[in-house]
C-alpha cells in the first residue's frame, strides 16, 4: 500500500496555511503585530510624550508651551499645597482598599466555600451587576443617600439617632469609593479562595487547627495573592479619580486627579498636569512591583 501525500491526492495544500501552521513564531508575530503596534504607537508613545511634556513649561507671557527641559514642575509639586493633596489621596486610597478588603473577604469566603451551587451563582450575578453598573450612577446615588434630605439622614431620624450629615465630606468620598470598587475586590479574593483544595482545610482541622488557626495559617496566606490583585484596582482607581471628589466631596476633598484635571482643563497648564500624572504612575509601579513579588499575577 502506498501512502499518498496530500498534494498527490489532488488536494492542494495552501503553502501559506501550511507555513503558518508549522512556523509558530511566524504565526505569533503576524497575530501579535497589530495589537502590539496599537499599544506601542498609541498608548506607550503617548505615555512617553506625557513624560517629556512633564519636563516642559508654560511661558507665562505667551501662554504657550515652552519646550525647554526643566524640572520646575516637579519642584512645584514638591512644595505648596501638592504634598498635602498627594498625601490625602494616598491615605484615602489605602483606607478604601483596607475597608474593601474587610468587607469583601467574608463575603467572598461564603461565596466560594460555603454557598451551594445555586446560591453561588446568584451571588455571582449580585456582584456582577454593581461591578458593571454605570459608574456615574453609582456615585450619583451616594449624593441622594448622604445629602441633608437624603435617605441616610431620614433613616437615622426615624431610628431616633443623631443625624450623620455626611453629604459633601471626606467621609462621603470614602464611602462612595469603597462602594464603587468593592466588587473589584470581591472577585479576585473569591477566585483565590475557590481554588484552595478542600483537602488542605480538612488537613488543617485533622491536625487540630481551630477555625481561626485555619483562617490565619491556611486561608489568608492562600488568598493573599487574590487580595493583592483586588487591591491593585481599589488603590489605583482611587488614586486617579476626580469625579467622586467633585460630586460627593467637600471643600477639603481635592485629590491628585482634581489637581491634574484643573491644571489641564481650566488652568491650561498641560506640562504641570503631565508632571502630576507621573505621581500616580510612580506609586502604582512601586505597588505593581511589590504585588508581582507576592505572586498576585500568578493567582489570577
Amino acid at each position: 500500500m502506498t501512502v499518498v501525500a496530500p498534494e498527490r491526492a489532488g488536494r492542494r495544500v495552501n503553502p501559506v496555511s501550511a507555513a503558518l501552521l508549522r512556523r509558530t513564531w511566524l504565526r505569533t508575530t503576524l497575530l501579535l503585530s497589530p495589537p502590539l503596534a496599537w499599544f506601542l504607537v498609541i498608548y506607550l508613545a503617548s505615555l512617553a510624550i506625557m513624560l517629556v511634556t512633564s519636563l516642559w513649561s508654560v511661558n507665562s507671557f505667551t501662554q504657550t508651551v515652552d519646550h525647554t527641559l526643566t524640572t520646575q514642575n516637579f519642584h512645584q509639586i514638591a512644595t505648596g499645597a501638592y504634598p498635602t493633596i498627594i498625601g490625602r489621596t494616598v491615605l484615602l486610597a489605602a483606607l478604601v482598599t483596607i475597608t474593601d478588603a474587610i468587607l469583601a473577604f467574608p463575603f467572598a469566603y461564603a461565596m466560594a466555600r460555603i454557598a451551594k451551587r445555586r446560591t453561588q451563582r446568584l451571588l455571582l450575578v449580585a456582584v456582577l451587576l454593581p461591578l458593571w453598573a454605570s459608574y456615574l450612577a453609582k456615585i450619583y446615588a451616594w449624593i441622594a443617600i448622604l445629602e441633608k434630605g437624603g435617605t441616610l439622614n431620614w433613616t437615622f431620624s426615624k431610628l431616633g439617632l443623631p443625624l450623620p450629615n455626611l453629604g459633601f465630606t471626606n467621609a462621603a468620598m470614602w464611602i462612595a469609593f469603597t462602594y464603587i470598587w468593592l466588587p473589584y475586590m470581591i472577585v479576585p479574593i473569591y477566585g483565590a479562595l475557590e481554588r484552595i483544595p478542600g483537602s488542605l482545610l480538612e488537613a488543617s482541622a485533622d491536625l487540630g487547627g481551630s477555625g481561626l488557626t485555619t483562617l490565619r495559617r491556611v486561608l489568608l496566606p492562600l488568598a493573599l495573592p487574590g487580595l493583592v490583585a483586588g487591591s491593585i484596582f481599589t488603590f489605583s482607581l482611587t488614586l486617579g479619580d476626580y469625579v467622586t471628589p467633585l460630586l460627593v466631596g467637600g471643600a477639603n476633598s481635592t485629590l491628585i486627579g482634581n489637581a491634574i484635571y484643573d491644571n489641564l482643563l481650566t488652568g491650561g497648564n498641560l506640562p504641570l498636569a503631565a508632571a502630576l500624572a507621573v505621581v500616580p504612575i510612580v506609586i502604582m509601579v512601586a505597588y505593581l512591583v511589590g504585588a508581582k513579588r507576592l505572586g498576585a499575577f500568578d493567582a489570577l
Partner: protein
Amino acid sequence: MRRSGLARAGLWMWVAGVLLFLFVPIITIVLFSFDASKIETWPIRSWTTHWYSVAFHDAQVRSSFLLSIKAATLATLIALLLGSLAAFGVHRARFFGRDSISLLLILPLALPGIITGVALNSAFQYVGIPLSLWTIVIGHATFCIVVVYNNVVARLRRTSSTLLEASADLGATGLQTLRYITLPTIATALVSGALLAFALSFDEVIVTTFTAGAQNTLPIWIFGAIRLGQQLPEVNAVVAFVLIIMFIPILIAARLTGSENVVRSAEPSRRT
C-alpha cells in the same frame, strides 16, 4: 459544633449586609428618577414618569447619547479585532515576554484612567490632532482591547488544538478552518467580549474628558449636569435609564459565557 453554627450565621449576616450595601444605592437612584418633586427629598411623596419624557425630548441628551453609541460601536469593533488577534497570538505560544503582553494589555485598566487621558491629550496636542469622535474612539479602544482579549483567551484555553490540526489534516485551508472551526468555537466569547467592551466604552467618563474636547458623550453630559445642578430631576431619569439599559448587555454576556467569566473580564490576565 454550636460555635461553628454561630460563625456561619454571622457569615451569612455579613453577606446580607454587603448585598444591602451593593444594592441600596442602585435601587435608590431608580426610585428617585420617578420622584415628581423638583427637590430631591426622602421619602418620595408623589410619583411620575414625566422626567423620562423630558429627558427623551432633550436635544442635548439625544445628541450626546448618539455620540456615545457611535464611539462605543467603533471602539468595540477595533477592540474585537485587536483583542482577538492578541488572544490568538498569545494562546499556546511560549515565548519570552508573553506575560508582559498580558500585563501591557491590562495596563490602561489597571493604571488610573486619568493617566491614559492626560497621556493621549499630551500626544494629540504634540502631534497637532484636533479632538474629535476619533480621538474618543482611540482612547476607548485602548482600554477595551483587554476585555475582548480576556474573553477570547479564556475560551481558547478550553478548546482543544486537535480540532484545528484535524481540520488542516483533512485539507482545509487556513481560511476554511477559521470559518468552520475557529469562529464557531469562539463566537459566544466574541459576542460577550463585544458587549462588555461596548458597556465599558458607553459608560466611560475619566479618559473621555481628555479626549472629547467640546463634544458631549452621555456620561460627560451627565457629569456636567450633576455639577451644574440645574436640571437634577432630568439627570435622575437619564442616570436611571443608563443604569437599567447597561444591565442588558451585561446579563446577555453572563448568559453566553457564564457570570464567572463576566466578573473577571476586567481583571488582570488570568493564567493562560
